[in-house]
């Protein structure tokens, strides 16, 4: 039985993750290998027993050590038992943090952000590394799931299905707390619509920790470039605030300009802290999103 089939039978939310998407997830390891062909197996060596190629040095033999790692030539030359040590060829820890605020839900935002998070987790797992999934809600980071095996993707999907967008993100408070949770040098994928009044400068809380990754900006066209619709009453799903406006061409243009400036400010602050700015929309195809994740991620 293939992985997608097992995922479907595991009762994942079929609205969020339809069979086509599950098939994409099943084919993702091969796709990652294909897309990353020619690259090193791991982009970063971590201390540990490791494999056979990344020789780090010798140490004295301790009882219990694997005799196969004893360097007999050195023992013959020096007269004492030394054990060869290698670095493990393992990828870095991938941190996937999803904006869990209510603003992520409308206009297909929840679907696309959940799939983006699922794809990010899948990429992290496919890269043979640990992957941790969490959400930012009401200024607090909350870990949903951590795994390192591809077979555990189902649990990621279930966790994403259970994570209903609610409340506010409060990025200004959430990011400093997130820094304490994220290990140094890990890969951080932050998925958010950035519809917050927080200043983009709050991203600098992530600076100096060797983080690399991406800021996946969910841009909903109905918010960032609304079409003229005449007299409408706009309801903010997060705050419940209502504004009755005449959404004509001039107002639409002004809204688009403000949204564009807002995105540019967040993008300009993401780069210095090691995050690549990757905007996507609910209409972005899953394949295109996956390609950008694999190709653009450091």
């Amino acid at each position, binding site marked *: 039985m293939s992985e997608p089939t097992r995922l479907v039978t595991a009762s994942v939310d079929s609205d969020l993750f339809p069979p086509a998407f599950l098939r994409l997830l099943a084919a993702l390891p091969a796709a990652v290998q294909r897309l990353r062909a020619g690259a090193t197996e791991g982009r970063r060596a971590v201390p540990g027993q490791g494999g056979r190629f990344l020789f780090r040095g010798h140490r004295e033999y301790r009882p219990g050590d694997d005799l196969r790692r004893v360097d007999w030539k050195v023992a013959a030359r020096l007269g004492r038992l030394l054990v060869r040590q290698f670095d493990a060829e393992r990828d870095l820890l991938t941190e996937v943090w999803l904006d869990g605020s209510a603003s992520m839900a409308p206009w297909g935002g929840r679907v696309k952000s959940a799939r983006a998070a699922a794809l990010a987790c899948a990429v992290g797992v496919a890269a043979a590394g640990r992957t941790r999934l969490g959400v930012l809600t009401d200024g607090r980071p909350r870990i949903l799931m951590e795994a390192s095996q591809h077979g555990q993707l189902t649990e990621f999907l279930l966790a994403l299905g259970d994570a209903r967008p609610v409340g506010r993100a409060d990025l200004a408070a959430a990011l400093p707390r997130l820094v304490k949770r994220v290990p140094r040098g890990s890969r951080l994928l932050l998925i958010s619509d950035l519809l917050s009044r927080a200043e983009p400068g709050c991203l600098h809380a992530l600076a100096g920790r060797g983080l690399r990754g991406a800021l996946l900006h969910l841009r909903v066209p109905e918010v960032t470039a609304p079409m003229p619709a005449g007299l409408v009453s706009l309801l903010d799903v997060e705050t419940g605030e209502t504004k009755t406006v005449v959404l004509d061409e001039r107002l639409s243009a002004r809204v*688009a300009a403000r949204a564009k400036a807002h995105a540019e400010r967040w993008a300009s602050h993401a780069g210095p802290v090691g995050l690549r700015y990757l905007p996507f929309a609910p209409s972005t195809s899953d394949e295109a999103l996956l390609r950008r994740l694999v190709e653009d991620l450091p």
Partner: protein
Amino acid sequence: MTWAAAWALVGLAALPVVWLLHRRRHRPRTVALPSLLFVEPEAAAAPARRQALDPELWLSLLAALLLVLAAAGPLQTTRAEGRTVRVVVSGGLPATAQGYRGRVDRVLARIAGALAAQDRLEVVEEPWWGTGLEPRPRPGVLLASADAGEAAWRVVVSDAEAPADPAGTTWVSVGSPDVFNVGVVATALTPQSAGFELFVNVRGDDTRSSTVRLVVREHDTVLAQRSVEIPAGGYASHAFSIGRIGLAFRVELTRPDGSAWSDDLAADDAVAYERVPIRLHMDPALPLALRRAVEDVLVSTLGRRGYRDATRDLALVVAASETTGSLPPAPWLLVLHPAPGEGALRAGAGIDRVRPDALVRNLSTVGADLVYAVSAAAKPTDGFALLLERDADGRRWPVVARLGQVVHFLPDPTRGRPAPADTPLWPLFVDDLLGEVGGRGAVGGAGYRRLGTPDDASSSLGRTPTELRIPDLRARPADLAPETRSLRPPLLAGAVLALLLLWIVPWSGRRARRRARAHAVPSAYGNPVHS
């Protein structure tokens, strides 16, 4: 205003429905958005004002209102059922007497007060072109004028006494027993070897004798004067021998002490003469008999030496009435009718029943500014000259002068307008053309004719008033049928126009809604749009 289908006015109740539908259709759709972060705070101020000024709403209401009203079929009653009262007021010289107009107005006010709102009062002055210098119209003319048209009650108001048979017409005499008048009724200017002989005939229209002084003066210079005794209701005359006179002179009545003569009728207290040249074009085809009539009218109105009351040159074209259709354009036109009762003159049995207004209509197409029309075949005393002058608006105002009467011309119509260059006109004096045929008032011969006889009341003022009795007009058949007009077509046209405007004009709100529908993106997960 009445309605053809008043029950359709129930449709007015649809107006609030239209308003509600419009409001429901245009009420703001609630759109759930992730955030209003990018919507300016001040953008929320405009919608209420914009909605109130929505032209679609007003056009919709207008179209609905017009449709309902058109369905109800409003009928506009322009005239209610009523009666017409035709009042003919006698004019002419006696009408210029002091107090006459006030007495007439009181009669008219009483008649008007007796009318209902839907009744109509027609007041006609006869002669309707009156300058106040003609004699009083004959009773037959006044009765005929009152008999014209449809009227439930016909009234003649005059200072003269009622004729024996008013023929169903109410004759109201507004004469006053207190009137006092002495006036010149005829003058004649006859050339003599050493100047002129001026004959003056004066009538005392009063119940007592009067002594007046006749004064002939040229400007401020007295040429001759003579006191005469006028018996009650009688005449007195005198012939002055005066030498060569200038371009103008006048003969007037004064009191024996030299003070101005003042009575109730001032118009006949003086007669003025002026000598002016005229330009005359005689139609070569004009019969000789008609030439005589030309002489008559010219002499009677201008005097054989060209003395008249105007000071400007005249230009006349003389032709027979049969040729009026091909007359050349001329400032003045003299038209002769060779026989009574022909053509447009066939208004009565004799020339004295000719309606001058009918003749005016007949001549209305003549391209002349001034028209004389005379009758040649009738008795000279019954003939008349019709003077038409085009005013600034292009209409013609006729002046009728009976032969032998004093004629005051209207201001010269050629003033400021040169005569057409192609018009064969020659500057001639009347006496040069016609010769010595008689003086003013002398028709067809030498000497003079005394106007006004004891049995001719045209130059005397009425003294016997009669009581006005107003009949019950409601008992008479209505001659004024009500007129109604349906307003449905213009209302329907207005409704169609409003609907077309609604459909054609790309109102901004409708365009935005269409565009929004065209770009609507269905939500895949949870519908955020609540309409």
